[in-house]
């Protein structure tokens, strides 16, 4: 038997704010909608920025992409701050217990030398790449247009800081401070890491935030994540140790979730106009080439004679994804 508790019912004057009623009709809005739509002002800024006097505080001209409604860039995860932090806290809790399980069960000590070396040389230096991804997503949050897009970039930036810190903890578990120093040395001077570092440093001076989104979140992540968290993991678990898998659970989960968001943004931009489609395609093509070069340098060092096959699998997958998004023609 169901019993409905009674509360005094009074009739509201309206269901939502005017700007949401204009978009969706006068019905109760979700917390995502309330916290996102039209919150960034679009006109009347009083003053031009002293740091960029040719443009307004928020200015559509900071990207070459054109949208009639910038709030088409909605987040399929519908993250507002509360939903976002609660989701991440849960993921972090799961990741912490997996990591603790591995450490407590002696998996670090039991790690075969080859696996250990692979992690020290190919996973731990990637913490710097994550820090670069943090900077790039902060840039998109700072200068991107519209709350829907930029707030998700602020969340992504914090995610990347979190992941950089998670990788650092793995480094500390594997070899203490020395492991981190050695990884930084590889990042700064190791031949196999230089193409990636160059890719990132070049991205730091890109001014167009949508181009940067393509360079970082679509192409580079699309190449690096499968490399670090699938192919490297497979290679290491072939040694019979699950440390990599347990210690990087957060990253794999995060990647599949973030990919949904990234693809939704790209799809929306491309669907808007032929001009957008052409621009995004050109960017994707350009960064795909440079990113593949960076990936290949790492793959050769990690996989030796299997490198070509690994790079082939990863790039084919990304090409297929880009094709699905409508920005890759031909094979």
């Amino acid at each position, binding site marked *: 038997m169901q019993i409905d508790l009674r*509360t005094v019912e009074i009739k509201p004057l309206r269901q939502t704010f005017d700007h949401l009623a204009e978009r969706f009709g006068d019905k109760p809005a979700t917390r995502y909608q309330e916290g996102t739509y039209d919150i960034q002002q679009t006109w009347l800024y009083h003053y031009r920025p002293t740091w960029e006097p040719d443009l307004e505080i928020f200015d559509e001209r900071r990207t070459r992409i054109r949208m009639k409604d910038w709030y088409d860039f909605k987040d399929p995860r519908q993250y507002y701050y509360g939903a976002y932090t609660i989701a991440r806290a849960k993921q972090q809790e799961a990741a912490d217990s997996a990591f603790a399980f591995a450490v407590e069960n002696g998996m670090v000590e039991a790690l075969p030398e080859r696996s250990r070396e692979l992690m020290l040389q190919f996973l731990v230096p990637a913490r710097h790449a994550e820090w670069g991804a943090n900077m790039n997503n902060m840039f998109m949050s700072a200068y991107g247009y519209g709350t829907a897009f930029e707030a998700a970039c602020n969340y992504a930036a914090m995610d990347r800081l979190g992941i950089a810190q998670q990788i650092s903890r793995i480094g500390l578990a594997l070899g203490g401070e020395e492991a981190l120093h050695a990884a930084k040395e590889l990042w700064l001077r190791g031949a196999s890491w230089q193409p990636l570092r160059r890719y990132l440093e070049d991205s730091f001076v890109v001014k167009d935030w949508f181009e940067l989104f393509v360079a970082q979140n679509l192409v580079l992540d699309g190449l690096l994540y499968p490399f670090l968290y699938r192919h490297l993991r497979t290679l290491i678990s072939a040694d019979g140790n699950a440390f990599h898998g347990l210690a990087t659970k957060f990253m794999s989960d995060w990647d599949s979730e973030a990919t949904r968001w990234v693809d939704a943004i790209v799809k929306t931009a491309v669907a808007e106009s032929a001009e957008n489609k052409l621009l995004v395609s050109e960017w994707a093509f350009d960064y795909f080439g440079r990113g593949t070069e960076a990936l290949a340098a790492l793959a050769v060092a990690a996989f030796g004679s299997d490198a070509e096959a690994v790079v082939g699998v990863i790039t084919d997958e990304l090409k297929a994804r880009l094709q699905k998004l409508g920005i890759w023609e031909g094979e």
Partner: protein
Amino acid sequence: MDMKATQKKMSLKDRYRHLTRGLDWETTYQPMDVVFPYDKYEGIKVHDWDKWEDPFRLTMDAYWKYQAEKERKLYAILDSFNQSNGHLNVTDARYINAIKIFFTAVPQVEYMAHRGFSIAGRQFRGVGPRVACQMQAIDEIRHAQTQIHTASNYNKYYNGINAFVHQYPRMWYQSVGKSFIDDAITGGPFEWMVAIGFSFEYVLTNLVFVPFVSGAAYNGDVGTMTFGFSAQSDEARHMTLGLECIKFMLEQDPDNLPIVQGWIDKWTWRGTRFLSLIGAMMDYMLPKRVMSWREAWDIYFEQNGGALFRDLARYGIKVPDCVAQAAEAKEHVSHQLWAALYQWNFGTMFHTWIPSPEELDWLSAKYPDTFDKYYRPRWEMWAQMEKEGKRYVNAGGLGANCQVCQFPMIFTEPGDPTKLCHRQTVYKKEKYHFCSDHCQHIFENEPEKYIQSWLPVNQMLQGNMGGGGLEEFFKWVHLRPGIDNMGFEGSEDQRNFAQWRGMATTNS
């Protein structure tokens, strides 16, 4: 690579260092000055970013954990508040007008703070401040959103909050807050930190949060109280960041002192003017008062701020000159502002009223030197006019706006509360008007910035606010005259509240 796992336990400080600063590197494929183009042009000299002392050490795993816990609690309370019609428990529906002022302005200002800290969180080349600013960036969007989510339920039942997105750039008095934060974000990252991180978060924020949130608690508004308390624990982090940034700049190079002092002077005055709105709320809008604006100013600005400036004296920082004028103004601003809102109430989205005889007595007691002498007679006269059906309205429109703070000319001359204060200056053959010496000085230091100000009165006269006439203005600004504004007595809000509270508390 041969490497032994180090056995010794690392200190928290070292660990944090590895998890933040250790991530960063000097770029070589692109010059650092191109990667970080904006942290030198303001003239602040930094010799060693590594000297930055992290004011708090929070890694992302801990951040998510703490913040998620706070969010769970906050939204559980909000849901229950909404479900049980908690809004009917406030002392009196007049109170809701105070939160209308808050909810239609502050979330937008918080949002701008989020964007400003995103910029700083990308642009500082030092990792310490960069990471701290990133956390504040995401905190600030939290504040904007939790405020909007709290406002959402009030919006369903009361008028005046529904058009906050439309009104933020359009409502004449909102240009005070908007120009304040737009001024800050258009400065460089260091000025931003002094404006918002230090002057606002450290020196002035307690004047917003403590009285306002206590006001909510005193008046039975559990929703507002809850987001307020929840935000306060973030504010504690923000305050330490602002202070650390000031100390860092001052310790890095003696040449930084005059620049920092100039910003502190400017932003203390900008903030003081902006906060006059809170003064009017505290003294006139809360049915159950927490303390007077003057008392709040004494505690949170003069005592707490005084201690802070004594602490900064060893760096050569002086108390800003404007503080003397602000100390005198604390006796006046709330009365002058509420009188302005009353006479121009036809152009706002909240109701006003004349204080009751009891409230007039409270004001007399709280302002023994000024209220009876300068302000009570006016309220008694206006009360008499209302009684005779001739409510006073200043149909002549607003006076000129101050070119800097954008308040209309409603504040009085220091030393003579019977005379409006008005300053003017000529720049490139154009005449500009100011409410005070301090606003004039701010203009004179950066005239090219402030000649850009979009002043509501001028824009209205030029027909840029809907077309020129009042009717067009109302439409343009999403106002329903007489429903969203004017007297609280007889308003839809008053009627609905009485009826709904009756339904909730009686059987008829």
